[in-house]
């Protein structure tokens, strides 16, 4: 019921919210944290392990699988060219129609 009362855009059913896949080149990373701090969906965290240079590179945070919206901000802010995103294979074509959400 609560979901049915949520305001949704009239064209919500046709808006395409992509899902991204994160690709990482671990050995290029120098651990500056730009991608982790400025990810708008907080998808990334530092890795537990280090790369060959001893830096903690970014990885997808536990429980954040499928959260990446492929905005590509990490791709263009990374000063080491060590991370990029592409649209995932199973990216949804559109939001679920309003009727499905309200049930």
């Amino acid at each position, binding site marked *: 019921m609560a979901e049915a009362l949520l305001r949704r855009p009239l064209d919500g059913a046709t808006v395409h919210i992509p899902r991204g896949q994160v690709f990482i080149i671990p050995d290029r990373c120098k651990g*500056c944290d730009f991608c982790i701090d400025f990810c708008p969906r907080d998808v990334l965290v530092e890795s537990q392990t280090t790369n060959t*240079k001893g830096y903690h590179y970014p990885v997808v945070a536990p429980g954040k699988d499928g959260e990446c919206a492929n905005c590509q901000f990490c*791709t*263009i802010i990374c000063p*080491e*060219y060590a991370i990029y995103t592409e649209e995932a294979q199973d990216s949804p074509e559109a939001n679920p129609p309003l009727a499905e959400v309200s049930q």
Partner: protein
Amino acid sequence: MAEIAVASHPIDAVLRRDRLPHIWCPGCGIGAVMACYARAILESGIPLDKHICVSGIGCSARVPGYMNLDTYHTTHGRAIPFATGLKLVNPELQVTVFSGDGDLFAIGGNHFIHAARRNIDINVFCVNNFNYGMTGGQAGPTTPMGSFTTTTPYGNVEPPFNLAALAAACGAVFVARWTALHVRQAQEAMQRAMQKKGFAFVEIVAPCPVSFGKSNDIGEGVDEMWMYRKQCVVNDDADVTKIDVTMGKEAELVVGNFLDIERPAYMGYGKEVLGEA
């Protein structure tokens, strides 16, 4: 969907991969600015063999060494005269000078002024990190007043250049300022500069955590990025004479595409007077 480890990046197409990783420190903003330039090149629609990148000396001037284009690493401060010669000899080339604030405005200051005055059809992209990072963090012509560097241990007492105002006053036809955090806007400004006929200047403020951030209580590169996030104000209509970069803890840092005017470029003059060679 966890992350997938791979070996190459989409912008590797314009990079010399065998030179990576580059020499810049962790937290340095130059890498992000170079990525903007690489993406601007890829999206400019101009063939790669028409793009030329020229630099002088310094950290930012290492960029041509990593770009897989025709690139020139010239003597200190002389990138603009070199680029002027390239453009005059072959006007079809898309000539870009990519260098730092010290190289372009101290050692090469006069060249900048006169290239802007003549309105030579080149792009000048300046990474401004407020000091001479490569040589150990000495004060330069853009070091804000009161800032601590290795040569200003009691705080800088000289007023710095406002690069946007300098470029506009000297006759540049396109003037923009962004930061290493405003990567999309910086890339768009670079693309506009490439399309622009005349002297186009884009200043990109970037963190230098090792030589500037540490001694000025800014912290790591990411802390300076947060500073940009909190203090930057986008205002394309700002009066360029009133937007000095002070790097104060509360001060506004005004960014935007401040100037976009038309003025005859120097390139359009030769054939009318001299005829076809």
